[in-house]
């Protein structure tokens, strides 16, 4: 059991590290094509990471150890996320639950690392990005917890692997109104948490509207490479979670080479579909004003809350 879980965790981490830059490349490519540009090809993010890793790091005066440690913490926390979330299979470690609260806790470690990196150099843009980032994170958290709480009600456990398992066994529950409400709420929360449109524009070059990019302005070389990779991994892991909840097929429930292979192929396809959909939708969206974002998040929270209360009422009926 423990060995199986370890094999699965290692597989998930390796697969995600390999796939994530390709996923980002795919999303950028879809966007470019829809906007009538040629695009740089889906392997470009990989080339960027390799280039940045090899480049020199510039240290601004007054920066502290956070500048170097923050990026590593972000990547490590994203890797833990990849190991815990059921992406390729649903075999969990017996003593490290893939509990929803633990997953959110690990996610928040990365959030905090990024926010501190933004504050470290003491530039106004970094502080601005960090402040906005934390404000959004604070408002997203209720939605995330309540949405997954809604999904956990029918099976009475907050472990993600058990939730995914039960959805695999009864696919009808995926299309139930409760599940749809919760998924929409969760999707909005994921978009806000990973700084995508309409909350933040990942390809913006206007400092005043930046959130995520503003925090990484002072980082260079391998620091920047880790920050980028870490943020991409968060996006990919959360998309993978949504993928596992919406399309729970192909996940390995026991560990053999064949099931692992099927799981890897399945997660690749799911990520490609979700990434392409997200990129396509983003083309047609404009960024929201920062002070309209709370309205969006409040809306998603209400959806999640409805999902929970409705799930109790349907259990009764």
């Amino acid at each position, binding site marked *: 059991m423990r060995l199986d879980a370890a094999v699965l*965790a290692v597989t998930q981490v390796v697969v995600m590290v390999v796939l994530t830059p390709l996923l980002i490349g795919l999303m950028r490519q879809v966007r470019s094509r829809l906007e009538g540009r040629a695009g740089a090809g889906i392997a470009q993010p990989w080339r960027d990471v390799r280039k940045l*890793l*090899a*480049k*020199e*790091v*510039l*240290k*601004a*005066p*007054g920066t*502290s150890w*956070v500048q*170097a440690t923050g990026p*590593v913490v972000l990547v*490590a*926390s994203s*890797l*833990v996320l990849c*190991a815990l979330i059921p992406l390729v299979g649903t075999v969990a470690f017996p*003593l490290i*639950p893939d509990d929803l609260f*633990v997953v959110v*806790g690990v996610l*928040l*470690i990365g959030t*905090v690392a990024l926010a*501190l990196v933004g*504050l470290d*150099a*003491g*530039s*106004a*843009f*970094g502080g601005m990005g*960090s*402040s*906005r980032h*934390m404000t959004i*994170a*604070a408002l997203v*958290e*209720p939605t*995330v*917890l*309540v949405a997954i709480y809604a999904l956990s009600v029918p099976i*009475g456990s*907050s*472990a993600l692997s058990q939730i995914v398992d039960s959805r695999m066994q009864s696919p009808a529950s995926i299309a139930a109104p409760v599940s749809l409400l919760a998924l929409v709420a969760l999707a909005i929360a994921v978009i806000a948490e990973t700084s995508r449109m309409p909350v933040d524009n990942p390809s913006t070059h206007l400092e005043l509207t930046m959130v995520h990019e503003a925090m990484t*302005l*002072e980082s260079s070389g*391998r620091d920047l490479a880790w920050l980028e990779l870490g943020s991409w991994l968060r996006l990919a892991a959360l998309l993978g979670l949504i993928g596992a909840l919406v399309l729970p097929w192909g996940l390995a429930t026991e560990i053999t080479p064949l099931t692992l292979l099927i799981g890897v192929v399945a997660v690749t396809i799911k990520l490609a579909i979700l990434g392409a959909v997200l990129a396509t939708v983003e083309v047609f969206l404009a960024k929201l004003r920062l*002070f309209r974002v709370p309205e969006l998040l409040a809306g998603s*929270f209400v959806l*999640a809350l409805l999902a*929970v209360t409705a799930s*109790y*009422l349907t*259990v*009764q009926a």
Partner: protein
Amino acid sequence: MIAAGLLAQAGLMAAAVVLAAVVPARYRARAAGPAIAGIGVAGAVTGLLALGGSQGVVEMPVALPIGPLLLSPTALGGFFMLVIGIVGAIAAVYAIGYVHGPSASRSSWMALAVFLASMQLVAAAADVVSFLLFWELMAVASTALVLTEHAQRATVRPAAIWYAGMTQVSFFLLLAGFGILAAQAGSTQFTALAVTAGDSTEANVAFVCLVLGFAAKAGVVPLHVWLPRAHPEAPSHVSALMSAAMVKLGVYGVILVVTRFLVGGATWWGLLILGLGLVSAVYGILQASVASDLKRLLAYSTTENVGLMLLAIGSAVLLRSNGTTGVADVALAACLLLVMAHAAFKTTLFLGAGSILRATGERDLDRLGGLGSRMPLTAAAFGIGALGAAALPLTVGFVAEWVLLQALIHGASASDRILAIVMPLTVGAVALTAGLALMTFVKAYGIAFLARPRSQGAEQARESPLTMRMAMAAAAMLVIALGLAPGLAARAVADAAGLVGIGSTGLLGIDLPAVGALLDPAWLAILAAALAVPVLMVSLRYARRRPRREVDLAWGCGGVRVSPRMQYTATSYAEPLARIFDDSLRPERDVIVTHSSEARYLVERIQYRQRLSDVFETRLYLPAIGLVDRMTTAGRRLQNGKIHFYLAYSFIAFLVVLVVVTL
């Protein structure tokens, strides 16, 4: 053993008071400090024994016809003695290096000894009279400590008056509540009160009085107004003791009420406690997130944490009345874990804040910055405390919040409509609280310790002396140790309240069979470390090839100015939040724009001022105080100093008495 421990505390208190009084100023801290730390250690040991099941009684006969005063800690009392004792010992060691000026005076050290000992004895009290006696002693000693620096700052006196006023409100409510219970039981001993229960009017009134009385001491909204004033004005070791230990006695009182005196009340009892907790948690952290005074921020965060504790107690009461005792036990365990967690990280944070205050003379985050390189140990300790307060994994704060959330999501059931609506809302509120706490403590750490210093005081800061560093390191270590191995804490908590359905597993992880959940943070840490190794190896490989190069100026999109005043401050960091929660915070903003004399379109200067006051204080207390003020002023007209008026009053009074008697 227990009796010896209790007597040792009293004896050490007397010794500390004498030492503080007779030892000359130069050696006073080195004499009184260890003695007070001894009180804490004695309390912690006694508490541990009581938690382990030892029994013992100290009986003090008194001349009044109220029976002897009894001191006999239960397991629950022992748990609180343990927490208070550890906090007290750490704060006393810290005080040795910290005290200066008025806080190093005789009276201040004497009050500190009395304060710590009386807190521990409140937790040991086994009858109403001794409980209230030590409660008052604790209140008086802490008021004296809040007043320590009254000659230095004008803001100290109003803070002490608010504190003393609210403390007396709390005392009178408790007196009324205990009075009803004692009259019903015909005895003042806790063992006799334990049988009083039921749904009578007396029980309801006693419940409300006791809960509100204890809530006032715990700093629960709307009785919290003393807290954001008294905590910042007291010397930092006293703030740590008040926030990490004293307010917990309010929580202890509420637990006593619902588990011993008035067991199994109506549903609205649970809802009342839960509601108080919910409002306190959200309001407290909202105020903390926009505060820029570091100690005021920490004080409001105390209100938040106490709110979470009451929320846990309230859900335990609701769940017990619903019949799901297993989950109710988990909720109560969450409350006790929160007590432990908050004691650990709030001690660290207040001691860290004291260290900053001592080094820079500043408490305002907007004037700090860059302390990470100047005070590395303070920065590390405060950082760990902040992680704990933000409830991030691998700290004790996370464990406590995890248990609370597990209890909440397993508490609701389809058959109970109230629970099916209350529990999801509570989960949402706890999540919002956690999110805002994260923002608050990123702000506190990031603005104070990172970037460049924003004032001269911050620029010239030096690390604190050895005893202060030792105390901060010990407190920070507790945050991490209890977070990595919460199994011991879980067992202590289960013993303290006789809970089933909570235990330890794996590498001292925490196990909740009642809700089918377990958590082993040590394994999580091992997993994270294993995954970080390859990342570090890649980093080191490239670092050897290309080391970091220091440049003259940060990039800042080409727009970095040399002046540190151009950096983001705590106020600007919280500005989006203050705007989003404009309706509940009601900040007052003044923007004065001075135009250039040559053209109206050119701006010469912009002045921005923002004041954040406590809504409850301005909307509830100040009008009430104003009303009393007006009434007493009007009443003064009766007393005009003319003898014939006074004669007329007594004549009228005489007539009234005659009429009343004859009726």
